[in-house]
């Protein structure tokens, strides 16, 4: 059965393959186009550099009218990432637009790594260190980067 959401996801996948954005990749899981695995490479000139961070993206049949649920599988230390890997990002919640696709979602998350928003913290420790003790923040982030090589 091919629903509008599934057809849209096929188009998203095609676009991701034909016009791959730098530093992100993603593909549907083998037997379910509604669940994707993705990888975001830590942006250059940020403490996340060299990290390979894995995520899962779960879509519903309401996509693209409703945003998917995006979650980091890799352990993250970031002001806007919850302990369970959930992401606090406006475009995945109240600023969602049905014109976004997987490529746009992944590049937005990638830019969130470079530009955290410590004013809407999901991890208050990370937000506090980001604002007040950048050296300690970077140390914690680098530990995640090393961890990301293993898992």
């Amino acid at each position, binding site marked *: 059965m091919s629903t509008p959401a599934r*057809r849209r996801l096929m*188009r998203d996948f095609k676009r991701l393959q034909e016009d791959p954005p730098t530093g992100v990749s993603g593909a549907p899981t083998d037997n379910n186009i509604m669940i994707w695995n993705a990888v975001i490479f830590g942006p250059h000139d940020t403490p996340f550099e060299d990290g390979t961070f894995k995520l899962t993206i779960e879509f519903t049949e309401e996509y*693209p009218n409703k945003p998917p649920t995006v979650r980091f599988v890799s352990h993250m230390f970031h002001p806007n990432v919850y302990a369970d890997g959930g992401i606090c990002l406006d475009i995945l919640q109240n600023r969602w637009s049905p*014109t976004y696709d997987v490529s746009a979602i992944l590049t937005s998350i990638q830019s969130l790594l470079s530009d955290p928003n410590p004013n809407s913290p999901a991890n208050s420790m990370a937000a506090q260190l980001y604002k007040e003790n950048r050296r300690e923040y970077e140390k914690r982030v680098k530990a995640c980067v090393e961890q990301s090589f293993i898992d």
Partner: protein
Amino acid sequence: MADENDNERMDDNQKSDKMFTLKKWNAVAMWSWDVECDTCAICRVQVMDACLRCQAESKKDSYGKQDCVVVWGECNHSFHYCCMSLWVKQNNRCPLCQQEWSIQRMGK
């Protein structure tokens, strides 16, 4: 061309609890986008073809023709009527420019 709607639109904006308020809108600003305006940004199918939903359902109306029409907003962005009507139920803004959505014309 959008001037006569400005007052109305401001009222709408004041009602909604958004982080910004549109004071004035210049419809001419969006023309540079027109190169790609043949594709519905919601379902990513050409607006002249049936939308993904109609394709999936291979929906025809009782007269036997596809009734999947194109809708243009005051902002000059165009979408399939099917795609846009689902979205405006959630959020009555153009998904591309965030302007309050009001229909300029419909057709093929």
